[in-house]
């Protein structure tokens, strides 16, 4: 599935200058802050002043020492702007390692660029950024900016540590706000960090964070957003692109969203209503009706992202989508809703974070969140979820982009936090059935049928849409351990009704078995060798996790060449542990035939840093056994 994230939300990283004599020399940085660090944030002060429901001013004053080529991003020397947000000041000063000023960069020397790119066709948002060529490392960037906006729907999150391999000497936040705007905040992951709340009154909030050491990024680690300290902030009474809003609880917020953002957007031309009613015909079952409507939308529309003004939040009118046949996630979701309405099936716009990395809407903090929209249809005691930006997804399939996470369902009577569908480990299946033969020259010929279901469906089914050269490259990558691989006939069966994708593939490969003197040696597992390379990590710090489990089962018939005797067969093998299970078995049959059976399952779960080596050894044994060889000797 394509990852279509609309710009529902913009995060404004912004700030203020406190006149103070700073020490810009690198000599004063302690060794502990330099360890594992590409950059050291020496000083980072953010001052947010909320003057009214329609006015927020953010000042940043940041001093960052960049230690090497990878450290520049930590300077965050950029600001976004658009029609409701203006950059009032932006400047930077560069210092050498000893703290001597080497360059001043004024506003006019910042680069000004449109944010359009990737999946977005058009957006009126732009940004100013510092384009600086380092002369030598280390060096220090002092960045000062001020941004004024009328949108108070998004108060930037405070995250003193913005990523891996960065350390923080001192970072502070000062927020000043009016008493009656309903300012609220929520703190996350403060433990194990030196963060002091220095002020917390009904008009002010301040924090100071000191000496946060740099952390290395480690494989399978949770996102830094779930590891590092952060403060979410919001107003109960906010403003967004000309519309005042309320966020006291999800019910009221949902009502506001329905009335102020969504209402009046779902009208349809009579002609289209008649057409969709005719298509649905006598059908009474709401889900069957919805399938007809979803199919209609998939055939009629395509995803095009256009973000202009309030259009960044408000869906395009359903009549426009009907006429133009395109729209972004909000537009297509809303259009589908309008069509369902026409055939009396209720459905709701649903706001969430669309990402293969599962991210929840923070249910304990009522505010504008998310980056994507889908549609939910109440179905008895649960919901059916529709991804309306995809022209290929099976009805109700959530793949790996919107599954298993908290989302906000917007009903006219109010908002509600709901958890989306969880794809059970045992349902994320790949089932291989096939056969292969080895001839006396070591050449392999074989055929396999691979059936993928559950969350494995989403990664496999995209193969169907590849061009012939891409398809060839895909399989040569998939079986990269088979040298001289030649692909024969490839056929697919995409059973969308049961969400099951079948690949039937014929292959051959010269020299698959290596010949040493009078022996043939080859790995018995041809079709599904585990390629997960679990790295050794010295002193792992963070926990690790698998967001989705899976199970693969293979049953392959092997034909051995005539004139050879089996000198060695790998023994049966079994592993069981908290991470999963693995089992292989070879059964001798008549006429030089073997049956090879293999199964592996990995469990979804979160594990401590201490358990990592255990996992690595588990996968290492799997890889080694997947590569177990048969030896044949010529008679």
């Amino acid at each position, binding site marked *: 599935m394509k990852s279509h994230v609309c710009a529902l939300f913009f995060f404004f990283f912004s700030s203020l200058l406190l006149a103070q004599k700073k020490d810009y020399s690198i000599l004063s940085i302690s060794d502990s802050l330099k360890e594992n660090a590409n950059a050291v944030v020496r000083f980072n002060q953010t001052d947010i002043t909320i003057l009214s429901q329609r006015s927020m001013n953010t000042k940043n004053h940041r001093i960052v020492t960049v230690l090497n080529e990878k450290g520049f991003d930590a300077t965050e020397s950029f600001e976004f702007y658009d029609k409701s947000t203006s950059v009032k000041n932006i400047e930077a000063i560069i210092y050498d390692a000893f703290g001597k000023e080497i360059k001043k960069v004024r506003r006019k020397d910042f680069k*000004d660029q449109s944010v359009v790119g990737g999946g977005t066709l058009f957006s009126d948002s732009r940004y100013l950024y510092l384009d600086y060529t380092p002369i030598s490392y280390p060096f220090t960037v002092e960045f000062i900016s001020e941004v004024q906006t009328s949108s108070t729907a998004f108060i930037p999150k405070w995250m003193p540590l913005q990523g891996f391999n960065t350390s923080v000497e001192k970072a502070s936040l000062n927020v000043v706000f009016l008493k009656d705007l309903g300012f609220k905040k929520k703190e996350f992951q403060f433990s194990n960090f030196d963060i002091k709340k220095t002020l917390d009154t009904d008009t002010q909030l301040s924090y100071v964070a000191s000496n946060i050491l740099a952390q290395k990024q480690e494989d399978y680690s949770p996102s830094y957003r779930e590891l590092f300290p952060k403060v979410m902030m919001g107003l109960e009474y906010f403003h967004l692109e000309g519309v005042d809003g309320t966020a006291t609880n999800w019910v009221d917020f949902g009502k506001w969203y329905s009335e102020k953002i969504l209402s009046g957007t779902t009208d349809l031309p009579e002609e289209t209503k008649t057409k969709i009613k005719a298509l649905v015909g006598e059908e009474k079952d709401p889900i069957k009706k919805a399938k007809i409507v979803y199919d209609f939308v998939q055939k009629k529309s395509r995803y095009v992202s256009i973000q202009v003004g309030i259009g960044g939040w408000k869906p395009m009118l359903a009549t426009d989508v009907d006429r133009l046949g395109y729209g972004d996630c909000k537009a297509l979701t809303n259009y589908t809703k309008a069509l369902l309405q026409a055939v009396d099936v209720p459905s709701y716009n649903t706001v969430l974070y669309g990402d293969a990395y599962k991210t929840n809407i923070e249910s304990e903090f009522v505010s504008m969140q998310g980056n994507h929209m889908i549609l939910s249809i109440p179905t008895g005691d649960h919901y059916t979820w529709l991804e309306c930006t995809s022209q290929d997804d099976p009805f109700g399939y959530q793949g790996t982009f919107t599954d298993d996470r908290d989302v906000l369902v917007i009903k006219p009577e109010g908002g509600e936090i709901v958890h989306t569908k969880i794809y059970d480990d045992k349902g994320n299946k790949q089932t291989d059935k096939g056969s292969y033969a080895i001839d006396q020259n070591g050449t392999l010929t074989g055929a396999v049928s691979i059936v993928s279901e559950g969350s494995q469906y989403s990664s496999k089914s995209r193969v169907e849409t590849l061009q012939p*050269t891409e398809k060839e490259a895909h399989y040569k990558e998939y079986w990269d351990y088979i*040298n001289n691989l*030649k692909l024969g006939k490839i056929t697919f069966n995409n059973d969308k009704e049961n969400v099951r994708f079948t690949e039937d593939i014929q292959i051959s490969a010269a020299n698959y078995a290596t*010949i040493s003197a009078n022996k043939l040696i080859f790995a018995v597992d041809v079709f599904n060798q585990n390629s997960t390379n679990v790295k050794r990590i010295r002193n792992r710090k963070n926990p690790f996790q698998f967001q989705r489990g899976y199970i693969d089962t293979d049953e392959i018939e092997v034909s051995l060449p005539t004139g050879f005797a089996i000198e060695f067969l790998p023994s049966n093998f079994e592993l069981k542990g908290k991470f999963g299970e693995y089992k292989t078995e070879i059964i001798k049959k008549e006429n030089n035939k073997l049956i090879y059976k293999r199964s592996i399952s990995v469990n979804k779960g979160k594990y401590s840093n201490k358990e990592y080596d255990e996992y690595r050894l588990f996968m290492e044994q799997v890889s080694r056994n997947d590569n177990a060889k048969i030896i044949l000797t010529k008679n």
Partner: protein
Amino acid sequence: MKFSTFFSLVSLLFVLSKATAQEFKLGKVSIAELEQRVHPKDTAAVAAILYKKGSSKIEFNQNDGFVLVTEVETRIKIYKKEGYNWANQSVVFYIGSPSSREKVDYSDAVTFNLVNGKVEKTKLKSDGIFDENVNKYRSRKKITMPNVKEGSVLEFKYTVRTSNIGMMHDWDFQTSIPVNYSEFKTYIPEYYVFNARQKGYVFPKVATQKNNRSIVLTNKERVSTVGLRAGTVKTEYSTDKLDYIETETTYSSEHFPAMKEESFVNNIDNYLSSISHELSMVKAPNRPIEMYSADWNSVVKTIYDYDTFGPELNKTGYFEDDIKTVLNGLNTPDEKIIALLNYVKSSVKWNGYFGYDCDSGVRKAYKEKTGNIADINLMLTAMLRYAGLTANPVLTSTRSNGIALFPNRTAFNYVIAAVETPTGYVLLDASDKYSVPNVLPLRVLNWQGRLIRKDGTSEDVDLMPKKVSNDIVFLSYAIDPEGKVSGKARRQCFDHNAMIIRNNIDGLKEEEYLEKLENENNKIEISDYVRTNQKEILLPTIETYSFTGNNLCEVIGGKIYVDPMLFFSNHENPFKQEIREYPVDFGFPFLDKYSITIQIPEGFTVETLPAPVVMNMEDNLGSFKFVIAQNQNVLQLNVVHQINEAIVTTEKYDMLKEYYKGMVAKETEKIVLKRI
């Protein structure tokens, strides 16, 4: 490199023939086109360009004089959803200076669908047209077509107007989907001379004809009547008719296939069929001829005369004092070259921008310690000259910019320095910290460059490395009865290989690097790691370390199976494609050599040894040697893999693929040890 033979097809270009008469008109979409389910010649195509017709016309108008008007009409068929991106179109245009800014308009944009056997048209309206200001110089006009479905046919037209005659857009006859018909016409008055250049693997037909044209100029003249009442002014009108010859040239192509990406390709755009036009001369009536570029010499002259090029080479005042110190006590040219190259590298950093002409100017770049390619390498050239060496700039084109095939200012985007020595040119690039004399960064290794001398003469310089870059490994290890391996490795990398290693190591902490090395090499454990010559970049890089590995041998049925080259063996043939469209580009010739000593465990003896092998490719393209010998419980293995040419033509692809297949098979062959 045989530059000339490789592109000999170019000479077949101008086969003059009348393009087949084809009638393509906007709005005339046929039922057959709408009904078509797949492309007849490429059934996998997601979309196809049914026709694309363009013209660039130099026309006269009373207000602006001669202007350049380009009109392009396109009809696209969408076969599959994956082709929906073709419904989003855009034109990038120049908005920099008022005198040469461009104006773009889309018109006649319609989506055609077949609904119940009837043609349904949906017009593009203003809500599907967007203007995006990319930056100070460029803007982009975008459209997204309405009502697009599988099977739709889309049509649109755009017009680009500018009074800068020199800005004719390039025309591509090919793209990533099939192009059924493509036609490009130019209408050029006799006052303008363009160089037209075509490139690619397939070429369009060309036809020309001369047209008689005339323009009527209305002159308005304010005349003072000289006489008694001085100061009276009257307006007189006069008309002049000017006849001129216009050359109409038509380039047309039919059924050009889709372009497909391949691995080991320098830059696929080099093989894309396209035509570009560059203004080389203006000969307006009653005015002196203005020359721009016609042949390499005039291109070079034009570039040399740019304020941002030639004059920058002549400035020396800003560095003289510093350079005297740098050169103090140095006598030989080699010493001076190295000293100046290092000096520029350490005092001015590359800001990431290409260009053969200066951006900041050498003086400012020197002061601010940062500049573009020209700032850096023209400064280096000037310093080399100042040191008494015969140094000149060499114009080049980076790999990403494509090959500079024709005399053309825009063919270049980069400049390096060359010093003439009795043994040939020494090529230098001070923008890359690991580049040394005659070892240029990979981005510069792109066929030929053009050297410019002070007197304005110029000549071609081959940029492709001739010298083989060595990678020499000594490996000595012992196997224990459980199949565990412990040993020592020493690896020396020379020239381009050294530059690659240095760039890989750059910025990596040693622990990080070792973790990577361990994980990439079958999870060996490394100790006693020593790196020599990391900073002495004229010398090869040397790495030595001890290692142990548990996964390097397989123990099967009491026998030990040894991959004799351990983690140095090539397990995969990189050439997987059955058919190769474009040449294989290795960047530089190379030689990988391994000397391996293997100690077999007590109580074991060799059951089988891989047989020695020697493979030689034709035309001395490359060779592989694998020699193994046993001396009691010690095995000695020598392996050499050598490719002598940086670029391998497609005719040799099958041979190369077979060679790699044989090499991989041999390198993965096991030594079998059995108990005595």
